[in-house]
């Protein structure tokens, strides 16, 4: 039985692809919440589209997705977070952007609206901003507790966000995040944008995952317009996605060790990262491969000497990387910092539907490439590494194993790269149509939901980074750890601020 059929609904939305979207009433909405609360399916997204609220659900085992839509009554809808905590920040966001209220939500504080905008509800019925009420952090009670405020401007070359620690001596009793500092209003800029301009915006949602965002956006647009990218384009897309994964994993493995003051590893993995980016530039003309994936295919073919360059890169990495793994595994002082630090319990990872390294280090094996089986991953072989320990060490090892898988994937893609066109023409549909795309970025799945208005313009686009369901777990992971281990834990998550803040 398809997931959508287990939820009572009135009708199907007419042109929503590839998975169905159904209009539900109170009973259907409550049933969907019930499925989430009982762990029968995973929350994939919750977003506003005034006057409606949409919720995407995932049946992991079946690889099935359903979107249910609830028409708000007087701008109100029944809270999901009341029974399923992972929806909480999404509900606060819907209220900040649209003014739609979740009835029964356990937290009514703002989330992305930090009180600096000139307008309230920028995506809904706009109002003049009012003087914001002071933001109250959650309390922590006990003897000898003190607070440490950190950010939004941090000490390193990283993105801005605020962390409020309550500590007892060195031990963290509570961490509360406050994000939204890099909110650029991407979803509002998407409204009415032409498809190519919208693709550029999507590519700049989180620069480190630019390939994955373009990939998911192209999937959504192609689904809506019923266009298929040529096979060669699919393989080139996956090639770029794996290069992006490699570069980021090298960066992360080094940066985690660096935060444990083991700079040698950072120096070595930075060399591999740089070599990967240089190969990417040689193949696709841009170090981060920005704007190469577009709806309909890719804007350029791989350079004629690209495959040879990539094979040279693979052999270089295969020579250098095993020794770095050995270096990590044989340095007791480093393992002393990473093993048993910042544990995410598997039950929590499952409940929050945490993807990427965070989920896979805590027993949740979801990988959009495998579970949703999109092209060309349905034709090439790879393993999805899963560990149970959930500590910093496990997150390092997941990255190490994924580097090995990406190397094999790149080799397979080069061996099988089909001949032929790299792009098909994309014509605007005369009707309103909707599409959903999910692509696996290095930190987890990226979801893009898109409605086109029948004139080739975007009517509404929602982008959901994997970080939404990982950030809250960082608050849980740090509990009981020492303050000095926070950078280590944070880096082992490496959540996106920009991808989250939008």
């Amino acid at each position, binding site marked *: 039985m398809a997931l959508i059929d287990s939820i009572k609904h009135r009708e199907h939305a007419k042109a929503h692809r590839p998975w169905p979207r159904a209009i539900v009433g109170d009973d259907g909405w409550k049933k969907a919440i019930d499925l989430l609360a009982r762990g029968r399916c995973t929350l994939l997204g919750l977003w506003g589209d005034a006057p409606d609220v949409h919720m995407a659900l995932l049946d992991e085992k079946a690889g099935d997705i359903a979107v249910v839509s609830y028409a708000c009554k007087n701008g109100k809808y029944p809270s999901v977070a009341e029974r399923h905590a992972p929806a909480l920040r999404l509900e606060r966001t819907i209220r900040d952007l649209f003014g739609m209220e979740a009835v029964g939500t356990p937290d009514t504080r703002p989330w992305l609206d930090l009180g600096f905008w000139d307008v309230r509800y920028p995506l809904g019925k706009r109002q003049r901003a009012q003087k914001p009420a002071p933001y109250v952090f959650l309390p922590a009670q006990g003897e000898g507790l003190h607070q440490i405020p950190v950010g939004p401007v941090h000490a390193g070359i990283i993105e801005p966000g605020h962390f409020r620690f309550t500590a007892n001596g060195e031990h963290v009793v509570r961490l509360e995040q406050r994000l939204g500092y890099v909110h650029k209003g991407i979803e509002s800029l998407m409204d009415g944008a032409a498809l190519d301009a919208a693709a550029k915006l999507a590519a700049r949602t989180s620069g480190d995952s630019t390939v994955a965002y373009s990939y998911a956006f192209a999937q959504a647009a192609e689904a809506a317009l019923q266009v298929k990218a040529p096979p060669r384009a699919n393989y080139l897309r996956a090639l770029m996605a794996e290069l992006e994964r490699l570069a980021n994993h090298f960066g992360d493995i080094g940066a985690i060790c660096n935060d444990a003051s083991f700079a040698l590893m950072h120096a070595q993995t*930075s060399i591999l990262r*740089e070599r990967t980016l240089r190969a990417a530039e040689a193949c696709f003309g841009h170090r981060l491969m920005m704007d190469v994936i577009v709806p309909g295919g890719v804007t350029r073919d791989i350079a004629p000497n690209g495959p040879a360059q990539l094979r040279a890169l693979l052999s270089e990495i295969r020579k250098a990387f095993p020794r770095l793994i050995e270096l990590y595994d044989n340095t007791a002082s480093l393992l002393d910092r990473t093993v048993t630090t910042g544990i995410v319990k598997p039950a929590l990872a499952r409940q929050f539907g945490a993807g990427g390294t965070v989920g896979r280090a805590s027993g949740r094996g979801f990988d959009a490439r495998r579970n949703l089986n999109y092209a060309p991953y349905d034709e090439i072989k790879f393993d999805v590494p899963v560990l149970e320990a959930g500590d910093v060490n496990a997150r390092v090892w997941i990255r190490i194993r994924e580097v090995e898988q990406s190397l094999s994937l790149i080799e397979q893609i080069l061996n099988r790269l089909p001949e032929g066109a790299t792009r098909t023409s994309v014509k605007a549909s005369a009707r309103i149509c909707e599409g959903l795309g999910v692509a696996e970025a290095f930190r987890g799945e990226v979801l893009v939901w898109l409605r086109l208005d029948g004139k080739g313009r975007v009517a509404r686009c929602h982008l959901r980074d994997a970080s939404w369901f990982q950030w809250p777990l960082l608050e849980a992971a740090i509990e009981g750890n020492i303050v000095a281990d926070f950078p280590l834990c944070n880096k082992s998550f490496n959540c996106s601020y920009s991808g989250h803040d939008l």
Partner: protein
Amino acid sequence: MRRTLFESLTQRALTEAPPAPDKTALAELTKSVNRAARAKLGRSLSIRQVDAGSCNGCELEIHALNNAFYDLERLGLRFVASPRHADVLMVTGPVTKNMREALLRTYNATPDPKWVVAVGGCAVDGGIFAGSYAVAGGVKDIIPADLHIRGCPPSPTELLKGLIALLEHAR
């Protein structure tokens, strides 16, 4: 570990010759930086990076400046953890309204004389994010900017060219 360390000592360094300073950058700096500041700062500059709303693409390339190929510190340039230790603020992103105050406070916490380097296309005028309710504008709309290094994101070589121009100018 010993083998990795030993090879680092015996093998040729990966570090590449620095590029020539960017001419446009030199021209822009002639207009903005006064002589007294140059004399004080001399040959070495401390940089404090501030992300005022970037997509994090620029941060990746700024990070790369520290790798073995570009090795920024050999030029007397280094990243510091506090604006109070900095001569240069390197600012990325369109400045979001949510970051405007934090950027201003960081600027005010940086002792004079100081330079501001705006990095990336968005830092010039907001780039593709200009016009959003959540974006205040480019860096120069909030604090005085002395140098712009364009690109989306600028490559480490482009960043180096701009920074070397800054050093040449400070000499």
